[in-house]
């Protein structure tokens, strides 16, 4: 029964989140998924979006620089992410979609460190939920 209620609530509330500052679909191309492995060269802590700069080594040995669009620095900072969390030289893997104009920019759909950890692991609603956040009490 409980499961059923949740299903109903989900069905009623399921919408595409309008959480971003702009239209992702206008900026990035769904037909150009990318998976990039490389090292961080710089992180720009700018609103409305953070941008991670990374160098990706190509099979022929050349290096291509990419820019990855990330979340709002305010939100990242509030969750405990600092300037030291993604220092230059960090090895990361980014999955996302390339910019529509063909430039070497992508959105950061998923970002994983070399050890498999995700960019940011927040408190999971299923494990206590938001009211247990000690830093906001």
């Amino acid at each position, binding site marked *: 029964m409980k499961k059923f209620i949740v299903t109903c*609530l989900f069905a009623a509330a399921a919408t595409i*989140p309008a959480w971003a500052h702009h239209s992702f679909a206008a900026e990035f191309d769904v037909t150009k998924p990318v998976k990039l492995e490389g090292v961080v060269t710089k992180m720009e802590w700018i609103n409305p979006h953070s941008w991670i700069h990374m160098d990706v080594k190509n099979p022929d040995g050349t290096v291509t620089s990419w820019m990855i669009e990330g979340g709002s620095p305010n939100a990242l*900072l509030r969750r405990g992410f600092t300037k030291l969390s993604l220092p230059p030289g960090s090895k990361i893997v980014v999955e996302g979609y390339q910019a529509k104009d063909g430039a070497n920019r992508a959105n950061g759909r998923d970002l994983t460190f070399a050890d498999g950890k995700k960019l940011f692991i927040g408190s999971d609603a299923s494990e206590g939920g938001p009211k247990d956040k000690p830093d906001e009490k």
Partner: protein
Amino acid sequence: MVHRLQITLTALACAAFGASMAGAQELALAAKTAPTPTTTSVPRTPDGHPDLGGYWTNATVIPLERPKDLGNKAFFTPEEAAAYEKAKLADNGPTGKGTYADVHYNMAQFGLEKGQSKVADNIRTSLITDPANGRIPPMTPEGRERNAERAAKNKGHEFDSAENRSLSERCILWPNEGPPMMPVGYNSNLEIVQGAGYVAVMQEMIHDARVIPTDGGSHVPANIREWMGDSRGHWEGDTLVVDTTNFRPETAFHGASENLHVVERFRRVDADTILYSFTVEDPHTWASPWSAEYPMTKVKGPIFEYACHEGNYGMENNLSGARAEEKKLAEKKALEAK
């Protein structure tokens, strides 16, 4: 196809479930009410008014409008509220690979997930309290026509220039700013500073401060129009009442005209809570006024600067993306013409 069938079946089953629960809903409504005002113990400023000052969040999982299948059920039972909150907080957005819905960030990774925010307790099924169905009243023919005209004017020109983009993409005004103030997907934080004769409200998204005189004075002349309107406040007992008019037509809160009239009420009900409510009226848009209410809960500061325009690469990228699309289309047409 199978997926679509499942959705249809779920919708049908939910509608039937909603109807069968109607009786129980009325019982729940009688038993559960919004936080009761207990203003005796709240902090006060030297002039005796309740002190609204501090850092607050209006983050919520409750939608502005009630899902239709919940009818006039205004409150969840505690179990339903818990299940609803859990489900909403766990939702990090669509993830279907290769779909436009997937072209976004993983909300859990980029600090935007709602489950990582403090959320005030709320057992309402919608923020809207009036009308009874918890939904925005139907738009008048005039309102529909005005909005359709505006949409038609921009159709096909959405990416012509920066000025064709939304106020939020242009970093001018976010839809949550109001007034009336609404929760937003992330950074739903605000700071209130209260002095003698003034209350200032600054919302993190997107960093506009509203300085409200509380002497009950009159509005600026009608020919002065502002993005966030002209707010004037006065105290009614322990409640700060803020009256706002003089909007610009572009602000268009939920399709409203520049004649939108907003009345907000701020009531500090306990050490950790401000109960915020508002009524909006605009006969040029809706046949009747409508009202909403939600609690704001105290959070640890500070409010971080949201210098939106400073790093707005997205605007340039959207426009260059549109130019690239146009070029591609022109090349395709030229090829077909050969």
